[in-house]
């Protein structure tokens, strides 16, 4: 059962990822990303990381991809320019990606990660209470730093998105 779920979800995710990369229409690409995220969320669930699956769908699929779509609409590139196919570039890209894959695969194989079963006790991510507990005791500092980061990111976005004209206003 698990195997089937795993295989189907992974195939789905891979297909959608390829869709993101190869689609001519940008909006289609964003949609494929969305679906890919959904597949990954399913894989998270299979790994008993329920909270994370939620987060992935809400934050990532919900906010980030939505933001992407907003910007795509704002910049008006649905139709997209015709995709000029350059052989050299495509080939180089393909080979680089294959290289990377080979390297990672080799790492995985050499690492002898084994086919062992997952750990006996439940994962932390399965229980929200446990997860939150960890977050707010052991990893409190990073959480605070994250808060700070978000504040700065917000400020940064506000600053950058002011129009050029406004920037030259003498105050």
């Amino acid at each position: 059962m698990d195997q089937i779920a795993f295989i189907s979800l992974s195939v789905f995710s891979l297909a959608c990822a390829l869709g993101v990369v190869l689609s001519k229409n940008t909006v289609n690409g964003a949609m494929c990303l969305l679906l890919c995220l959904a597949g990954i969320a399913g894989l998270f669930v299979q790994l008993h990381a329920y909270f994370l699956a939620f987060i992935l769908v809400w934050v990532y699929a919900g906010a980030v991809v939505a933001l992407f779509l907003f910007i795509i609409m704002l910049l008006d590139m649905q139709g997209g320019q015709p995709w000029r196919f350059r052989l050299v570039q495509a080939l180089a890209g393909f080979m680089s990606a294959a290289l990377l894959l080979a390297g990672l695969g080799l790492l995985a194989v050499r690492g002898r990660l084994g086919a062992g079963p997952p750990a006996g006790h439940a994962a932390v991510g399965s229980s929200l209470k446990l997860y939150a507990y960890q977050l707010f005791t052991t990893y409190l500092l990073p959480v605070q730093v994250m808060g700070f980061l978000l504040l700065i990111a917000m400020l940064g976005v506000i600053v950058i998105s002011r129009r050029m004209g406004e920037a030259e206003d003498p105050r």
Partner: protein
Amino acid sequence: MKPSLDAYVMLSAALFAIGFLGVLVRRNTLVIYMCLELMLVAATLALVAFSRFNGTEDGDVFVFFILTVAAAEVAVGLAIIVALFRARRTVEVDRLDSMRH
């Protein structure tokens, strides 16, 4: 029979490689950015898989932070792209080469 750690890692690697391919091949900045996000997600998958198979919590918690950072990064990055579009009227990476020597 549960899928082994190998499988998860290989899957993660495949997603990462696809994302990388996208970054290299596509010329539209937004699509490149989306592929970047894809790579991030692949990394989170690997982290969660390791965390599950080793019984630790570090991987899970780290994924939380990755997601947060990714969100912030996307916000800022897209703001930059918008500003760039306003200045250059294009988001094709090929045309955005004013930093040439």
